[in-house]
């Protein structure tokens, strides 16, 4: 059972809110926090927890079912599909991470090579023990209001 507080959405992030939920669920599956046949929070629980519009949560769950990450048992809720291709999902999560980092870098005038070097340096500096999928979160720059 997913524990409350696991999923986070960011109102400043331009991705649609239902896409943000989908990405949070995919990350939890890839990172192992959600295992096969684990029950997802109900739409009611997740909407209450994140103060989300019901349709946003339902759309996320519907899309996750369509792509094969979740399966729905009528009257019982949504569960993590045992058939989910974790390798492919992991690739997707990583690609998404990389694309967003590259976009940010391009805006700051940083080349992909510089970014790569900076990531290696940062990973060494911080001991590099974190799972990159779990520890990344802040994506879009927030320095403007600082």
């Amino acid at each position, binding site marked *: 059972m997913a524990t409350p507080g696991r999923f986070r*959405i960011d*109102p*400043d*992030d*331009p*991705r*649609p*809110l239902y896409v943000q939920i989908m990405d949070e669920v995919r990350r939890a599956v890839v990172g192992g926090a959600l295992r096969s046949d684990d029950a997802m929070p*109900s*739409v*009611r*629980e997740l*909407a*209450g*927890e*994140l*103060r*989300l*519009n*019901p*349709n*946003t*949560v*339902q*759309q996320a769950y*519907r899309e996750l079912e369509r792509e094969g990450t979740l399966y729905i048992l009528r009257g019982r809720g949504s569960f993590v599909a045992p058939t989910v291709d974790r390798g492919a999902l992991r690739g997707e999560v990583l690609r998404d991470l990389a694309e967003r980092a590259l976009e940010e870098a391009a*805006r700051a005038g940083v080349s992909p090579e510089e970014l790569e070097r900076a990531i290696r340096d940062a990973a060494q500096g911080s001991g590099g023990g974190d799972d990159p999928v779990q520890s990344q979160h802040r994506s*879009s*720059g*927030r*320095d*403007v209001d600082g």
Partner: protein
Amino acid sequence: MTQFSRNTEVQGGTLMVDPITGNERWAVHARGLRKRYGKVVALAGVDLAVPEGSVVLLAGPNGAGKTTLLKLLLDLLPPDGGEVEVLGRNPSHRGHEVRAGTGFLPEEVAFPFGRMSVQEMIGFHARFRPGWDPEYAQYLANQLELRMDRPWKKLSKGEARRAQLLTALAHRPALLLLDEPTDGLDPLVRERVLALLAEHLVETGATTLYCTHVLHEAQSLADRLLILRAGSVQVDEGIEELRQTHRRVRIRSRAPDTPAPPAPAFVVREEGRSGEEVRWVVRASEADVRGWAEEHACDVAHVEGVSVADTALAYLTDGGDR
């Protein structure tokens, strides 16, 4: 978990379409709605179509007509002109039916119940509300930590607000009109009220007009933003559409000591300006902003998403109505 639910899963989208005519169904439909108090124009011709099941964040400065609009919908005030239909009825003729199908949380906390206890006040409301669910009322009372034996006139503002909220929700009305629902509540109770509302909306699919100045706390609960300014509709748009079409950008003049150009038409609000650099909330794609910057010898230093609350604020700021 679902013992109180009427329909656990809101049938997204399908509820909003009439099964016979195939037309979209409106919980609230207004055309040219006008109201004035003496010489003061409160509503200057409001057109409004709220789809069934949607949650509308209603924003606007004080005196913009938000509260007046809610009162006209319930026939608590007569309009001076225009047409309005609420839950398929004309409030002027069938006001009691409209009110029975609505959960109304008024802006002001009224204390007309004197020595009545909270329990008695709630019982009083229950008698006039078809569909009142005593079990759900009890659940809400527990969640809101209401003390039932307290005399109404001794309640704090926050306690009275919570009791009012219970009476607005416990009959699971088709329409919720909430005027500053978290006003006067402490931060923990605010959080709980917002969670309760989100759960309530999942279970009932109620159409909601959520009127507030505290936009950030309700922005993800809503699927539409309605901004009233000076009695007119300034913005009426879906939340995701707003999120996709608005960006916050930082623009910098390439030439040193040259101020950034004045704001073009796609700028909703200039948030700050210092020397060569300017920060805007824009209604434009990143590509459009970059194209404009290229033509004006500027660099786009930064582009990011902007929350619905900040977008609303941008439209509410003076000069934001260009």
